[in-house]
């Protein structure tokens, strides 16, 4: 007996999802393992890993705020030119002329601030629950790198509005680079290496001896391209390793189970 031809709707569904939707154990597994996004999760989780009392939800929320900054950040890039001549004017336009410009900017900034706090709290939770212990040592190291990247992302974005707050905060921050031993012109050992305010580490960061046009462009490129790429790469490794290191951490299962 011939089977009836497959309907268009079913063919379309099957071509995208590769499995049926019926709530069967097998489909629950496939729902995770056959999705490029969800497969960063393991197919099963230990019961306590669902409890917000254990995870505080901080890792996931850090990722969510990152996604918010990516989406709103791309929108903001349409309206922003990274030059001293235009940057501030574009900010004013964004706030007063562009429809929904203000809320895009607000969400970008508040999500970024929230992300810094959430990442700190995530680190605190992981420390307090001892989740960095074997076999998860190296994922903690990657996590610290992501923490640094988060703060650098926030710091490079801080300059871009090109208002007084931005310019002087970056001046204070990057002045530290001028104090680096041997590599900064105000640091100890500067006379040994002969660096000047035009050739030292701060000049490398700012593209000159002070915060100006080249600094805006450098921070813009770092903020919108280089640092997000690094963060995405490390996040992929960070999430993948959670699964590979045995899923979310937890107490050893009670004996006799």
């Amino acid at each position, binding site marked *: 007996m011939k089977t009836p031809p497959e309907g268009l709707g079913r063919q379309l569904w099957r071509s995208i999802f590769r499995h049926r939707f019926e709530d069967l154990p097998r489909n629950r597994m496939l729902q995770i393992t056959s999705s490029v996004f969800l497969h960063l999760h393991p197919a099963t989780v230990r019961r306590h890993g669902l409890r917000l009392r254990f995870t505080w939800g901080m890792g996931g929320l850090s990722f969510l705020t990152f996604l918010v900054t990516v989406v709103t950040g791309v929108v903001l890039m349409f309206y922003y030119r990274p030059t001293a001549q235009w940057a501030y004017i574009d900010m004013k336009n964004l706030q007063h002329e562009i429809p929904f410009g203000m809320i895009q900017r607000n969400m970008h900034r508040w999500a970024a601030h929230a992300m810094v706090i959430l990442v700190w709290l995530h680190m605190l939770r992981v420390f307090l629950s001892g989740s960095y*212990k074997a076999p998860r040592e190296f994922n903690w190291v990657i996590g610290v790198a992501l923490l640094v990247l988060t703060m650098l992302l926030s710091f490079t974005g801080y300059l871009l509005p090109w208002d*007084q707050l931005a310019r002087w905060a970056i001046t204070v921050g990057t002045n530290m680079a001028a104090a680096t031993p041997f590599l900064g012109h105000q640091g100890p050992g500067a006379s040994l290496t002969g660096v000047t305010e035009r050739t030292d580490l701060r000049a490398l960061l700012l593209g000159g001896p002070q915060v100006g046009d080249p600094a805006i462009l450098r921070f813009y490129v770092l903020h919108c391209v280089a640092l997000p790429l690094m963060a995405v790469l490390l996040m992929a490794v960070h999430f993948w390793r959670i699964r590979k290191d045995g899923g979310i951490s937890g107490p050893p299962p009670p004996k006799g189970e």
Partner: protein
Amino acid sequence: MSDATKPPVATAEPSDGLTTWPHLVRVEFLVALAAMLVLTVWSIVLDAPLEEAANPNRTPDPSKAPWYFLGLQELLVYFDPWIAGVVVPLLIIVGLMAIPYLDRNPAGNGYFTLRQRPFAIATFLFGFLGLWIIPIVIGVFCRGPGWNWYWPWESWDVAKTVDLRNVNLTDLLGIRDATAATWLGGLLLAGWFGLGGVFWLWQRKSLALLQLGAARYAIVAFLWLSMAGIVVKMALRLALNVKYVWVSPWFSV
């Protein structure tokens, strides 16, 4: 209950836990939804700051770094920029990364416990709260013109001049000769970190130190004494107006 007596339901869970779909994905979705709601309301109610246009010729007083770096800026009160802005951040990053390789205590892996790892948790919380969060709160709310202390309810219009005649520790000890001061200051600092060696000689037979081994212990002792040293220097400044502990022709600590 044996497997034979279980009803053969279609949604039976694996014995080691729950299926991620739908259990974890549902929690994540609901938390994300709540977070987006908070963020949206926050963004409607509160506008991101935008001050007047950048002006290279007008330096605001105080010039504050972004709030998450104010802990480091606060350290500038007590240390030269190369320590507060370069050495300390590097030590924080390297020290954090080293934690899993230094903490050999197998207890408390995957659950919250204070009793089974008091030293690790006390040290971390002291660093996190005492040396990072509290200085940020001070930097954000209590620092005004000239980086002087202004309570949040105090007006910045009131000029504050703080008479700080800071002196070096060796001056306090009555050493006038520069070379002798350099030697004494260097010895004091070496002695501070030498405390780690003394403690090793005293306690090397203890279980905790045997577990660590000499190399790990040396790193732990160095990082821990560095952290405590920051507090000691703060105390010396606040109590005795000490500017430097160690003055040398090349750099001072």
